[in-house]
């Protein structure tokens, strides 16, 4: 036999997928066996597993788990309760005498002033903002499947596309989202009781989905929601 096996047949022989005729030729042909050895070396090189980064494993799994069932970090509920308590105290404090004003100023500015950029004066109960200079948290919407379409439309009208992407592992997560869908805009909302930047991405079929960037971490908020 003067005709030699092509790479398809030689490669198949490595996987026991060659025909009996091809196997018979291979047994008798040193040139074909040499080529098969090269392909075997290639298969062995391909079989070397790339390293898996444990941190990326955790991030990928966390990002894939549905956000609606995500357990909140342990600090979220106490922090939210403290914010509510202090928020309820603000109206009472405003009725105190002028002598008290200087002592309570730092608390008031943290929860009632939209122009302040410092959260340090209010103590540890208030979670830090994702970015400075944002609107009062109480004016920010809470996103759910019902309110998200209106929120997304509002974000689109505003046309803002800047975000700070703070939070553990957020940059990589945001970058991943950006490769999947086009960033349509950025707005602010309450996520898990705290202010967060919410990135609205376009998805297939004119859908949109929200992705939150908050001090506590990043998460997909909802399954894709159709805007129209």
């Amino acid at each position: 036999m003067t005709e030699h096996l092509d790479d398809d047949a030689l490669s198949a022989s490595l996987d026991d997928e060659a025909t009996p005729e091809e196997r018979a030729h291979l047994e008798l042909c040193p040139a074909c066996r040499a080529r098969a050895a090269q392909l075997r070396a290639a298969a062995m090189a391909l079989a070397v597993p790339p390293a898996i980064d444990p941190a990326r494993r955790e991030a990928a799994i966390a990002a894939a788990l549905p956000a609606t069932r995500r357990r909140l970090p342990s600090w979220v509920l106490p922090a939210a309760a403290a914010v509510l308590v202090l928020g309820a105290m603000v109206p009472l404090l405003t009725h105190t005498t002028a002598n008290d004003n200087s002592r309570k100023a730092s608390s008031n500015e943290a929860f009632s002033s939209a122009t302040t950029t410092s959260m340090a004066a209010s103590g540890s109960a208030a979670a830090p903002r994702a970015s400075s200079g944002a609107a009062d948290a109480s004016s920010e919407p809470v996103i759910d499947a019902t309110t998200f379409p209106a929120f997304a439309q509002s974000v689109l009208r505003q046309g803002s596309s800047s975000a700070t992407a703070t939070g553990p592992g957020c940059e990589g997560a945001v970058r991943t989202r950006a490769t999947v869908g086009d960033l349509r805009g950025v707005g602010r909302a309450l996520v898990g009781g705290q202010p967060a930047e919410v990135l609205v991405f376009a998805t297939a079929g004119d859908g949109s989905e929200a992705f939150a960037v908050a001090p506590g971490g990043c998460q997909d908020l909802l399954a894709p929601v159709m805007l129209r």
Partner: protein
Amino acid sequence: MPDDLVAAAQRGDRDALDALLRAHHDRIAMLCRRMCGNDADGADATQEALIAVVRGLHRFDGRASFATWAYRVATNACLDELRRRARRPVPTLTLLTDVTTRDHADAAVASVDVDAALATVSPEFRAAVVLRDLCGLDYADIAEVLDVPIGTVRSRIARGRAAVASQLTGNPTSSPDRPTPRA
């Protein structure tokens, strides 16, 4: 993979879903890493693949093994990712200040030739040989994952191995001195 774990995940059991993702993450990550050719893109594709698995879990009907189904979802996620990158090579999001660990040159020396070789074949061909040699699927399962005939699988695997063989030998026409092979 126990069927009851899949069933529990399909019913919305978060712990079961977590376990399911953990059980399949590494093989999906390896597939995506090799398909994409670098760590950063592979991680992105892996994350999208896991998201696609979760979102498509209700469509898994048990006709194939869960692993085969997950490979199909992951392969499609990788192919989609590669197509998107081809259309949009530069990310437009200005907040992305760090493209992270795209170059792990020292750590990746062993795989540089493989990645470079695989880059010379189309993603569809790459998928076949990666599913075979890295993931260990047989030809029938690869045909199911890629939705192509087994003969096509055989040809694509051979093309991928030949590309890597050329890299390993440093010779783009690295066949031994043989007369023209049979067609």
